[in-house]
């Protein structure tokens, strides 16, 4: 494995009952890069994203073959602490989902659950996480107001702050801006640029332009297969596979 790879996925199959949703996926995900997954609905990109922090464990009928290594450790081995895995591999969802509590409590929810009680430590976590999520200046005077009172774009950045508070190594984002207006979208994209310095980001997006704007590496999925993965500049200017070309130019008949 190259030194800068975070994940190494080999021959990953995933079944929902009899249905095979992922077919022999093999890929490396590099550290401190934004990797984007694109592809039409039902192509398996979100399913694959969820295998990276074992969110699919929550569905009974799911069966997985193949291996996923995170820093050389197989994350599907029996002795893996899934809670710790999900701390290392945080996740941000399509719809902003702040808890029905204050901004402050949202951010420290995870650290408190880990047993941190010291008010000073918690205060520091709140400020640094909100700063990292580029939300601090907008909310520093109303930390004890409800997170639900924020705008959609702010709520999503609050969710990112909540993820960052757990000091993850990787942040998975499943269409994080699809419910946001264009300006809020650009703010989240700007934030990703900043975050990738410290974290590895993997994002599922339906916006081809978003993938082109923000990602370093793009992976194109189709019907459960990884069709093409490579440098984003290359994928969007001269893809190698005809299926990729057809999809990104919008000629998916």
């Amino acid at each position: 494995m190259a030194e800068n790879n975070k994940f190494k996925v080999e021959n990953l199959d995933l079944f929902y009952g009899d249905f095979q949703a992922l077919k022999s996926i093999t890929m490396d995900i590099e550290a401190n890069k934004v990797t984007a997954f694109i592809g039409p609905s039902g192509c398996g990109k979100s399913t694959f994203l969820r295998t990276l922090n074992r969110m699919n464990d929550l569905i009974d009928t799911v069966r997985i073959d193949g291996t996923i290594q995170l820093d050389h450790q197989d994350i599907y081995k029996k002795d893996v602490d899934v809670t710790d895995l999900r701390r290392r591999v945080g996740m941000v969802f399509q719809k902003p989902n702040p808890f029905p509590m204050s901004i402050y409590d949202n951010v420290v929810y995870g650290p408190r659950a880990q047993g941190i009680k010291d008010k000073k430590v918690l205060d520091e976590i709140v400020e640094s996480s909100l700063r990292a999520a580029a939300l601090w200046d907008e909310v520093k005077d109303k930390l004890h107001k409800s997170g639900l009172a924020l705008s959609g774009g702010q709520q999503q950045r609050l969710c990112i702050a909540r993820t960052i508070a757990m000091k993850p190594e990787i942040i998975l984002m499943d269409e994080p801006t699809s419910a946001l207006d264009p300006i809020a979208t650009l703010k989240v994209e700007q934030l990703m640029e900043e975050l990738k310095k410290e974290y590895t980001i993997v994002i599922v997006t339906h916006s081809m332009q978003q993938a082109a704007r923000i990602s370093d590496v793009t992976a194109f999925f189709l019907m459960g297969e990884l069709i093409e993965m490579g440098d984003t500049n290359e994928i969007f200017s001269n893809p190698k596979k005809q299926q990729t070309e057809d999809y990104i130019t919008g000629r998916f008949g």
Partner: protein
Amino acid sequence: MVDFSNPRASFDQDLEQLSNMLQELSNEAIDAYQQIKIALQENKKDVALEVVRHDDVINELTEEINDMAILLIARQTPVASDLRRIIATLRMSSHLERVADYAVNLAEYILLNVEKDLETYAAIIIDMIDHLLKMIEKVMESFHKQDAKLARQVAEMDRVLDTMYTKNLNDLFEITRSETTHTAVLATQTILILKYMERAGDHVTNIAEEVAFLVKGKTYEFNKSSVKMRYLNDTE
């Protein structure tokens, strides 16, 4: 009923239109050279004058291609081969416009020398024009067929044009040294005109490179000048 089989149908129509506009521009350029041939063969001042006037139409058409390309980029956010096609068309139109500009230089040459000694060099100029026109036709064919091999043939044709130029240059150079002032001036003017033909061939070769870029997604340089080649071979 809406036909969903090609979600980009209207964009495809626009791209088609852009290609047609480029074809129209090349037709205009070819037509300008055809007029120049008539003016040369028949000593016709008014035909040459019309080529000068008609240049405005060519410039307007080039601007229309620019405007349409910019609109398509802004409105359709093209990627991959779509983007290459638009960018290539944009650059090809500017090369074609230059090729047509050289026809205007030829028209000016005719206007200067009409009713004097125009017929002296008409044949060698027309030879080069004929060759240039074949190159333009071939490069447009390669564009429509998206055929990079055909485009490369244009570069080979350009080497023939270069050879024609070099040979004529040597002949004319002799004349500028040995003959009377009047004859020497005409020969010098003709050297410039032949140089323009040679340059026009380079622009057509650049268009061929754009076709290769459009098809292959890589940048090509088909023609290195012989001097540059020799220099590079000597020093590397």
